């Protein structure tokens, strides 16, 4: 049985069919961007294992690429491939495997986010562009804040979130990709607490531009055996912090973009922008920063086409914020991609393989002539 599966997986036909399906996915994904936006399209068609059109499941980008990887690896172990005259083919296959492994690493481990730093201040956190998290922050200690963070993949209705050091449990009741607050005309039931006593969280249509979406979450707190138990709601970017008190400890609850803490900090010394003459259109902008590592600052200039690469992260000058009082803040795009070099290396390997294959096959070509 297993041998049959291996035979199926190592069939060149599987690779060709996968490639054709991948091309269809690229077309469908590209066209759908117009209606559902870039991020949603990427998630549905390329970053998924399966997606559904009506009740019918179709293989998503990840499963197709995984099949292609399995297929290439299986082909590598075919005995008739390991001959001197096929050395070029083996190397091309190796390059293909490397390319797909790199794609897998990028898909699974890479992260993209932004850092907003005001002039004169510093930051060591990157906020993810898309992924949200529920943070329960114990602020009772005078020296530090203790974070209990639950990631977005856990936001399934009815899912129970708990931590051994939390004196209460959280049950997810509803998670909304895009939500708005609506004032209640009357008062809500006694089970509703905090913001939900006076407001209703309402799901609204997802915006094509993911940056405009404001996720919202409704959850139940139980197990504190106090007046704190009840149903709470949070919306991304709410101005008033939601707080609860359980057994003498003060907690802040926040729905925030997934935060990544860096082992170093970036301090913005000065932000400069150059405008096109006579217009409000920025020609170029740059950030004079201090990269602070082990309390030692190192001055660096980040410009639009000169990113900072450090500790696996690449910081690009993405945008800026200027408030009416003239204070400026830089917006840096922070990207961490473990598979960044794989496409370059694998392309070189595949080129070498093709060249070798051509050289090895050349005598046969001349013979025929």
């Amino acid at each position, binding site marked *: 049985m297993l041998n049959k599966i291996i035979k199926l997986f190592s069939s060149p036909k599987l690779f060709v069919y996968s490639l054709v399906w991948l091309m269809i996915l690229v077309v469908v994904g590209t066209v759908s961007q117009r209606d559902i936006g870039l991020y949603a399209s990427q998630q549905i068609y390329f970053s998924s294992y399966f997606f559904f059109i009506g009740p019918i499941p179709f293989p998503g980008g990840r499963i197709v690429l995984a099949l292609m990887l399995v297929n290439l690896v299986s082909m590598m*172990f075919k005995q008739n491939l390991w001959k001197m005259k096929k050395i070029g083919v083996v190397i091309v296959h190796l390059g293909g495997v490397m390319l797909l492994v790199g794609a897998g690493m990028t898909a699974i481990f890479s992260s993209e986010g932004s850092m907003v730093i005001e002039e004169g201040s510093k930051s060591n956190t990157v906020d993810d562009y898309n992924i949200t998290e529920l943070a329960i*922050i114990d602020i009772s200690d005078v*020296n530090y804040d203790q974070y209990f*963070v639950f990631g977005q993949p856990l936001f399934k209705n009815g899912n129970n979130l708990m931590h051994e050091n939390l004196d209460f449990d959280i049950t997810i009741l509803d998670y909304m990709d895009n939500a708005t607050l609506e004032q209640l005309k009357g008062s809500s039931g006694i089970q509703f607490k905090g913001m939900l*006593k006076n407001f209703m969280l309402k799901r609204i249509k997802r915006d094509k531009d993911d940056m405009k979406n404001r996720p919202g979450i409704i959850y139940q707190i139980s197990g504190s055996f106090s007046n704190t138990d009840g149903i709470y709601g949070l919306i991304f970017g709410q101005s008033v912090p939601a707080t609860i008190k359980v057994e003498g400890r003060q907690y802040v609850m926040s729905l925030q973009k997934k935060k990544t803490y860096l082992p170093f900090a970036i301090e913005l010394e000065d932000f400069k922008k150059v405008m096109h003459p006579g217009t409000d259109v920025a020609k170029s902008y740059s950030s004079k920063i201090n990269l602070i590592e082990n309390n030692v600052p190192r001055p660096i200039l980040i410009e639009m086409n000169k990113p900072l690469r450090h500790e696996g992260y690449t910081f690009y000058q993405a945008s800026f914020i200027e408030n009416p009082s003239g204070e400026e803040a830089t917006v840096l795009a922070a990207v961490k991609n473990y598979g960044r070099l794989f496409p370059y290396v694998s392309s070189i390997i595949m080129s070498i393989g093709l060249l070798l294959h051509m050289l090895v096959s050349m005598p046969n070509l001349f013979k025929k002539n």
Partner: protein
Amino acid sequence: MIIFQKVSLLFIIVFYLGCDNGRHIQNYRTPKKDFGVEKSLINEDSRSEAINNLSWDLPKGWVPSKGHSMRLASFDVPFSSGVGDLSIISLSGISGGLLANVNRWRAQINLDPISENEILDVSEVGESKMGAFRIFRMVNNSNNEKAILAAVLPTGEKTFFIKLTASQQGLIELESIFEKFCSSIGT
């Protein structure tokens, strides 16, 4: 060779299924950050105060202010983007009835009057040292700058009216502390 194929197939499956970049729960510490809740924490440090045989726990930051003669007490109540006005009035008996007073407040922010039957739907009940009180939250969505939070505390001979006027944002921030303040009222 077939054994290598089996091992590589197994490795790839384990690699794909084993990779997970966001499902876990994280627990970590960071240096202290200002979440903007310090004000409310400070407000919990209240001090007792008594006027005309009536006492309450005055939240820190609330400043006595000048009100007109009918008022038993008045306070400036700060919130993040302004200052609300809180008044305590005591009138004999039921003083015109609960419905009339609620509709008078509603008219002050251009809300339509409600009926006797709707009173219970638009209010919440709290418990003070002098008995139960009823809180009314009045917000007009077309006017963000003025909203009213009012508590009515009947004690038999007298009825106490505690009224907070602030912006909608102020009401959200002050609602919890207002409830605590009303609960602390006693003789």
